[in-house]
């Protein structure tokens, strides 16, 4: 086990995978100098054919990723901030997610599209979106949202080795966070949630950067005698419904923490699964701690008021637990 920063773990994964497979090509705006640090050093090591700065033209870039993959290469496209995925949305939604089906399975698309996402740092509305609900709805695209350095490395490797398109989202502003990364070859399978903490009283499903908040909340709850179990789905497509349901079977209560806007969020999807497949297990309402249906305001005081917090998780859980007899 080595301690690595989130962003270093991704960088390590890129080095190792590009070394292993000469058909992996990295391209995107300013990937050579690397603003976030995740693609640092790759250009020098792998040269201009395999690591390439592009002009600013996201609509083309996503389409190019499809064409490169269809023609036998394994593109990794760095989109910088996830809001810019909207600028390149057409080829993601109309091509990347559909061509495997449309061609009757002929077209394999081993594409990884990566970007930083999420609010909390006054980057304001156009640099803070949390777009995974959109990608989840498209179908045909795997969606990985690591919560720590080790998973970031393992999920990234799985993404680039997969023959299907994957969106790999890095929680913005958490690149410096240290975490344990297992030594040697480290892969994290898609569709396998991690149980971050065991507990008997409530299940908290937390996504990406929310795992840390859930963890803080769990500690505060423990001080109140409430033991929370924390599930980190790690990938939202595929989603490990079984692990979530097994946890609900134990705790009988579910809170989902998601930094997406609430409407049609991952939280809503998980709540819907619980209300269907887990209905008989639940003894309290399913609660969502999300961003209300608002884009991120700039002022820290405003942003804080809508961004999920450990306090909101704690109070949500406490209300659930204390209310249990009322239902």
């Amino acid at each position, binding site marked *: 086990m080595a301690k690595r920063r989130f962003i270093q773990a991704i960088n390590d994964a890129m080095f190792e995978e590009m070394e292993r497979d000469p058909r992996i090509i990295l391209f995107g705006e300013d990937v050579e100098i690397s603003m976030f640090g995740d693609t640092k050093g790759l250009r020098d090591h792998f040269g201009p054919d395999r690591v390439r700065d592009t002009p600013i033209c996201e609509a083309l870039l996503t389409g190019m990723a499809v064409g490169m993959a269809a023609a036998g290469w394994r*593109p990794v496209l760095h989109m910088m901030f996830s809001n810019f995925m909207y600028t390149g949305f057409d080829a993601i939604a109309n091509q990347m*997610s559909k061509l495997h089906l449309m061609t*009757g399975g002929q077209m394999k698309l081993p594409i990884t599209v990566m970007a930083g996402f999420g609010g909390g740092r006054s980057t304001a509305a156009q640099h803070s979106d949390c777009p995974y609900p959109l990608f989840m709805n498209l179908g045909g695209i795997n969606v990985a949202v690591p919560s720590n350095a080790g998973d970031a490395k393992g999920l990234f490797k799985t993404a680039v080795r997969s023959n299907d398109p994957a969106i790999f989202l890095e929680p913005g502003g958490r690149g410096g966070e240290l975490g344990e990364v297992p030594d040697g070859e480290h892969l994290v399978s898609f569709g396998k949630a991690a149980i971050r903490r065991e507990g008997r009283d409530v299940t908290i499903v937390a996504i990406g950067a929310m795992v840390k908040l859930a963890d803080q909340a769990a500690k505060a709850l423990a001080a109140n005698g409430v033991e929370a179990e924390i599930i980190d789905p790690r990938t939202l497509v*595929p989603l490990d419904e079984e692990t979530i349901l097994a946890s609900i079977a134990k705790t009988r209560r579910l809170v989902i923490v998601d930094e997406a806007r609430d409407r049609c969020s991952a939280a809503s999807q998980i709540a819907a699964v619980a209300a269907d497949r887990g209905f008989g297990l639940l003894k309290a309402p399913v609660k969502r701690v999300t961003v209300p249906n608002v884009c991120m305001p700039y002022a820290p005081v405003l942003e804080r008021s809508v961004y999920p917090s450990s306090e909101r998780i704690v109070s949500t859980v406490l209300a659930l637990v204390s209310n249990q007899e009322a239902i």
Partner: protein
Amino acid sequence: MRNDYQNPSQETLLAMYERMLVIRETEEYLGAQFRAGELPAGVHLYIGQEASGVGICAHLSDEDWITSTHRGHGHFLAKGGDPYAMIAEIHAKADGVCGGFGGTMHVADLSRGILGANGIVGGGLGIATGAAFAAKLDGKGKVAACFFGDGAANQGTLMEAMNVASLWKLPLLLVCEHNGWSEFTRSEVATSGNILDRAQPFGIPAQEVDGNDVGAVWRVAGEMIEAMRNDGGPGLLLTHTYRTRGHVEAEINFLSQSYRSEEEVASWEARDPLDRAVALLAETGMATEEILVVRERVKTLIDAAAARAQAAPDPDPALVKSMMFSEVDAW
């Protein structure tokens, strides 16, 4: 050594004529089937434009890539796609080249470098640019040709593609098939200036050609593609042509007014690319009987393909579940 693209040989010309006939026969059949209510969805016919796709694809092998449009049957067949597999696809049958999943606007055959027809206008531009980048990385002299219409030329991704392809010297042949219309909008209403000029700011060589003259298309495309194979960077080729059928078969059913004159259509029918190919063949001294033999052969081929496609089984719905991903089953 540089090839001479001055004159297609009689053999080449005949092969191209036969390919054009395959397209024409197939689409006449499909149009009739649609009108008879035998197809599940409308078809966008390439009839009248055959020389453009055929003259260009004559220079491409299965190792080269093309992307196509909603009007993609012709490109599919020109690039060597199997008529039976395409007809079965459009009949929504299990034997279809996409197993019945794609349909008329999405015919694709990756084994032949056909990256697919595309229902999104301009959707091929990024894909072809990516394939051209792949071709460059492969380093084997492959090229990618992107077919798109004059309407699609107003999508900004054209400029983006030209910029990247020029900077990276990609073997990308941008083929704008200018048929004067995008749906029911006349080109002049939607397009400022001459599309050919749009390549100039990027230093991309651009040529235009009579798109109904398969010999002319073959010559110009041959030169451009050969240059590309020798690391020559992208090119823009504008083929002037016309769809003598509607935008989509049976548009008459939903349009309340006509949008073009009968004279306009007739004037282009008089320049039919197949008739002109026959004239070119005659110039090479080919006898009418020989041409009739080809016609019969094609007719027989397509009739047989059609009959077989009609009799083919429907696809199995159990397959849908596994079709969104190649590996994980995630629905």
